[in-house]
């Protein structure tokens, strides 16, 4: 059942321009980040690590969470329009499958974005002529970032399901990003879903996360993914659409 729901969700997004934005953001981050790195190479001395911060610091705090917010709002927008809620709720599909299907599609897109971010980072590093090997931590940063993206998607999907406006959840995501920056800077990043992306991706380059923090990070991601999911399933079962 879940597989069919995911297939249908992908079908709904087939002609939507969401893909373009998700691939544009890492591309712009890579081009502008590399240019900025090359302009300030005398200050940014940590080579691959400095380049990584230039690629990820702004997008992971402010723009990728907001873009995930746009995707989630877009997925629910289809249900909020016309009489689609009535049609959706009369289908022989469980509430769990409805929400999880949208979450899996969001996670897939986040994973693709992370893959592109990684590929562009390597390409830009080679273009900039950085010496040495690509940091061995790169796959870890990307994977942790994807897990964090899943948490943000879960929170945003739950929000967008309740709020009928398309734009409001996007604004909330941006405010979440600012809050995330404050929380991460104060050492409380694991308690805010919007901080997790930058923490996991090591966006400030100095290691927000130590090796010992990896388990709490995964626990935090799991909590911020499961809680909104459970709430959304409860809401779908109990509330009158």
């Amino acid at each position: 059942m879940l597989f069919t729901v995911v297939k249908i969700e992908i079908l709904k997004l087939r002609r939507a321009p969401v893909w373009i934005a998700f691939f544009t953001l890492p591309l712009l981050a890579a081009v502008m980040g590399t240019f900025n790195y090359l302009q300030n190479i005398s200050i940014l001395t940590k080579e691959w690590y400095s380049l990584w911060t230039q690629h990820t610091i702004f997008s992971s705090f402010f723009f990728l969470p907001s873009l995930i917010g746009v995707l989630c709002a877009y997925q629910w927008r289809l249900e909020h329009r016309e009489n689609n809620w009535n049609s959706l709720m009369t289908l022989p599909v469980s509430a769990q499958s409805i929400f999880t299907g949208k979450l899996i599609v969001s996670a897939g897109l986040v994973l693709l974005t992370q893959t592109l971010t990684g590929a562009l980072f390597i390409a830009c590093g080679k273009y900039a002529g950085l010496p040495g090997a690509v940091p061995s931590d790169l796959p870890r940063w990307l994977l942790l970032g994807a897990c964090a993206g899943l948490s943000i998607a879960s929170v945003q999907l739950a929000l967008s399901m309740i709020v009928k406006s398309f734009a409001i959840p996007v604004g909330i995501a941006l405010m979440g990003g600012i809050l995330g920056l404050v929380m991460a800077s104060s050492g409380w990043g694991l308690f805010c879903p919007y901080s997790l992306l930058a923490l996991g991706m090591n966006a400030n380059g100095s290691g927000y996360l130590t090796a010992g923090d990896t388990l709490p990070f995964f626990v935090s991601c799991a909590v911020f993914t499961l809680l909104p999911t459970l709430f959304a399933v409860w809401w779908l079962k109990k509330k009158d659409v």
Partner: protein
Amino acid sequence: MNMLRLEFYKARRKHYWLIVAAMSGMQALWLIWAFRRIDARDLVQGYLESLYQFTMLNSIVLPVMTAVLVSRLCDIEHKGSALKVLFTMQPSGTLFDAKFLCAGIHLAAAVGFQIAVILLMGHVKGFGSPTPTADFVLYFGSQLLCSLFLALFLQILALRHVNQFIPLAAGLITGFLGLMAMFFPAWVMRLVPSAYYGLLSTVHMDWDRAAGIVTYYRAPFPVADCALLTAALVILYWFGRKSFVKREV
């Protein structure tokens, strides 16, 4: 004026002001957080530092806030398939103008609120310099001008496309470009509308890396850049209004 009043009437239960209040409130909290530990040196340049901090924040927050606001203002017509009816009842150009003015009033309130927050902060913390009225006037004008340009650009997109993903994504990407462009030479900044938040600022920062000291200083108002953005605004307004009036709904 009637059309503008109608726009506010449509917005009656939509709480657009809440979007502005929430995002501006978040910016205010940021400033409070930034000034939580403050020394005598920071106090002396408190007003300049506040203006600089808000300018940086504006380049991130205002493009998205503008996109959310404008999208809500325009989506109301798409949702109700109201454009066809409205076009038979009022000159289509006035609808375009009313929406733009309505967004502009909200944006002016947001920038005005920022100045009020800085003044309050200065009063509470006791910033050690006289209130820089001229800086505030220039700040209000420049930040509003840049926001108006973005509002116009996003309004054209939001009215053109039923799918509001497009103006929202454009707002996000414009904000991202604006923030990144601030680390680029001025000629690159001039190509990005949201970079004008920084470009038109009269407060700049000098960071002494060795001593770890940040100094804020005033620079002359960039009249040429302001004129460039104003000219771009006028051209975009003419183009956007004309294409809206001539379109088939």
